[in-house]
């Protein structure tokens, strides 16, 4: 089984729109896949970071879920190095909807995110 975590703007599971930035995403979509890439389960979790009303920071909280892969447009350098240290693959998203990036992932089309981004787009 493989666990994939994707930061999202809304609660729509596989149809959710990806968030532009990992740490500031209001939700995380957690998808469990079997060896053939079929979806075993989909969960939508609120960003539980302390600056979102919870406890801890997003990266640490996601670590607790034991993900294998994170797919995102962008991530801060600190979170990136945390996931890299924990040997979690961080891949760059190439589409806007969760189920589309999952499909790209299954086909091995996604590249690794190698650099934390300093400026998320604004405006």
């Amino acid at each position, binding site marked *: 089984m493989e666990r994939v975590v994707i930061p999202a703007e809304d609660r729509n599971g596989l149809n959710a729109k990806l968030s532009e*930035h990992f740490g500031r995403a209001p939700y995380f979509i957690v998808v469990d896949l079997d060896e053939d890439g079929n979806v075993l389960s989909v969960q939508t979790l609120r960003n539980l970071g302390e*600056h979102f*009303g919870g406890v801890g*920071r997003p990266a640490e909280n996601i670590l607790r879920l034991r993900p294998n892969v994170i797919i995102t447009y962008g991530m*801060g350098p600190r979170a990136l190095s945390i996931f890299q240290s924990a040997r979690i693959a961080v891949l760059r998203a190439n589409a806007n909807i969760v189920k589309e990036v999952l499909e790209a992932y299954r086909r091995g089309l996604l590249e690794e995110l190698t650099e934390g*981004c*300093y*400026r998320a787009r*604004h405006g």
Partner: protein
Amino acid sequence: MKQITILSGKGGAGKTTLTAAFTILAERIVVADCDVDAPNLHMLLHPEVIEKQEFRGSMIARIDNTKCRRCGLCREKCRFDAISEDFKVDPFSCEGCGVCTLVCPVNAISLDERIAGYVYLSKIKSGFMVHAMLNPGEANSGKLVAIVRQNAVMLAERENIDIILIDGPPGIGCPAISSVVDVDIGLIITEPTISGFHDLKRVLLLLKHFDIPSLVCINMYDINYNNTDKIVEFCRENDIEVIGRIPFNPEVTKAMIDGKTIVEYSPESDAAKEIERIWGRILSILV
């Protein structure tokens, strides 16, 4: 839901008066006063407190003198010099880390929670306000800032409010960091002085480190046009938007004495109009 923090690095640039003005201009907002050492925002927004929470920020070590054998191991291992020669814990130095409780061979030391301040959830005209008061001399202001922010998010979600405006503390240390992590925008208020410019650069580096997009606003820009130009040039070179330049206006202080913001006291003034324009621009960026 979007979060924006107003910072300055240097104190006295006008964070609080500006945060209050934006709050008055906003339709529906949650505002968080994260200057927990010396909170002033309530003096302009006149919040009505609906809930008060105790902040048990830190622990403090307590030595049981009946058990203490004065072996001195706690004094040796305490890295904050918080235990005196006669084995009294200095409440101003004790960080509550617990090392002394680990090393005491006779278990004479325990950690007590201490009430280090209070958090207030309040109603204001355009929504809600979360503010706090750290007891004078206390540590862990960063933790209190985090709690203020948590409450702000809770209120925003409960009341379906899209924007959280955070009045940040001065400096770039622990409480300032706590006030900016994971926000969508950092708005830095600066004054056109050499010190202000120096401090602005440090705050920008801080925001960059935490991956927060920055905007700069020059307050009282007409007290030194030369420095204002230098700041504008610096921002241009570094690809940072200067969102506005507010002229100096002595009515800001008169308004404060009246418990008002400049946008209420003197809405036709250039300063008030510029603040209104800036708020509009912030909204368009955030949403």
